[in-house]
């Protein structure tokens, strides 16, 4: 689904992403970890077609990130902590808007919308402004909206920041469910325990990938019990 080889991004003298390589299979949950400033967001931008790489190759859903960014954008879903939905539009309006943006037909939008609202138990709140919803519901709705047009891959940028522990887990159950349906999930997070939910994890340090494997393998490799300790060991060099 995603193939990356020697991908780099430079801003003048500064190398934000330094020749990273990895691949993600269909239906996999891939966790992209690292401290703030390690290069995670830059790397994600290159894969979602928002930023042009300085070097290296990458394909997403089979499309080249240099020449076929429009095709990529049509096939992916995206959600970030900083922005997900328009606060001054209602739940329905948001869903319809994003559905429309991805070229879904009116009737399909309507069908799926009722289904989505039922699943999230938001049916009676469908005409409420998104800004009036509690944070946890917003996050879950935003995730559903990012999947609404049935993309093959979904990119999630720190999706669970700040929510209560139960909502966080409900969110990850939604991710599991999506992966089970065959959607590939590319997620960044700084909650180390969430790294454990992923099939494969890569940890970025200063623009390079310092470690990449399944969580279990990594823990064995560093002889520790938790991903937290893996990270601390890596960061302390």
């Amino acid at each position: 689904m995603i193939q990356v080889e020697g991908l780099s991004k430079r801003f003048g003298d500064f190398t934000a992403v330094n020749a990273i390589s990895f691949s993600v299979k269909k239906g996999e949950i891939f966790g992209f970890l690292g401290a703030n400033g390690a290069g995670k967001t830059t790397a994600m931008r290159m894969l979602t077609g928002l930023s042009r790489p300085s070097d290296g190759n990458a394909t997403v859903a089979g499309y080249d990130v240099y020449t076929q960014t429009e095709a990529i954008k049509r096939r992916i879903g995206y959600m970030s902590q900083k922005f997900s939905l328009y606060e001054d539009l209602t739940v329905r309006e948001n869903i319809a808007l994003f559905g429309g943006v991805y070229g879904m037909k009116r009737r399909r939008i309507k069908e799926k919308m009722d289904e989505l609202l039922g699943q999230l138990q938001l049916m009676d709140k469908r005409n409420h402004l998104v800004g009036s919803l509690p944070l946890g519901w917003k996050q879950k709705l935003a995730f559903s909206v990012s999947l609404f047009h049935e993309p093959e891959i979904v990119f999630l940028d720190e999706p669970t920041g700040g929510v209560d522990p139960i909502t966080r887990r409900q969110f990850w159950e939604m991710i599991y469910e999506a992966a089970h349906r065959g959607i590939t999930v590319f997620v960044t997070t700084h909650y180390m325990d969430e790294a454990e939910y992923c099939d494969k994890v890569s940890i970025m340090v200063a623009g390079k990938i310092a470690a990449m494997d399944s969580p279990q393998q990594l823990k064995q490799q560093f002889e520790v019990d938790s991903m937290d300790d893996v990270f601390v060991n890596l960061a302390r060099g």
Partner: protein
Amino acid sequence: MKPVEIQHISKSYSQLRALSDISLAIEPGELFGLIGPDGAGKTSLFRILTTLLIPDGGEAKVMGLDVVKDYKMIRRKIGYMPGRFSLYQDLTVEENLQFFATIFGTTVRENYDLIEGIYAQIEPFKKRRAGQLSGGMKQKLALSCALIHKPEVLFLDEPTTGVDAVSRKEFWEMLQRLKEKGISILVSTPYMDEASLCDRIALIQAGTILSVDSPNGIVEQFDKPLYAIRTTDTYQLILDLREWQLTHSIFPFGEYAHLITTHQVPVEEIKTYLIQKGHEQVVIRQQKASIEDCFMDLMPAVA
């Protein structure tokens, strides 16, 4: 005299009930944690205690002084580190520290011993603009600025949010050392794992306190049987256990899932049920609840 005493405090913002009937007290020299997610009311409570907001109901005292009437005196005795480390981005590290020392009527030198351990780590960068520091360094600078006038009580609002895991650990080590100097510290954090580093904690969610005790105390109070289970397919595991009639709650916890049953169940019985459902490599062990387990169990029902 207790450094902080809160009695039946409530606060609302137009439609939103931020705090409902909060009562709490902190002992001298204690490292007290206020644990809860975004929107729980932590920042509102902090602002009331640091005299920046007036509560709708109830009373609060800091160092025996009333937060509404005696705010001027309180402001001289407390140190405050608000969320987002409010620093002057375009002033250097040095200039920030000097500024805060000056407005509190002291000099950097006077109380340097207090912040030495912290400041030493950012001193090499003292001529750098605060806006260009990393998260961990901003944290240390903000803490130094809050301590520079030797406060009696320290209020830290989410000091570890948005900071990498290594800096977070270092920060808590610094707090432990400060505690030894006799400063009472009230910290808020959304990270449950940091709760165990405090002397006592209050779990807060949606404006109400769920429980107050030492971390151990809270765990001891947890009276339900908890099992950590791992199989090859975590997702299916959760779906299957959700259907089981003996399940009280089931949640993913990383590699394992935490199952709370309605009553004590022999491990073998759980294993049998799971194998029946087709799970392989089933590993089950009964264990003590973590703070997070307790929090989730105490939370009122979420949608």
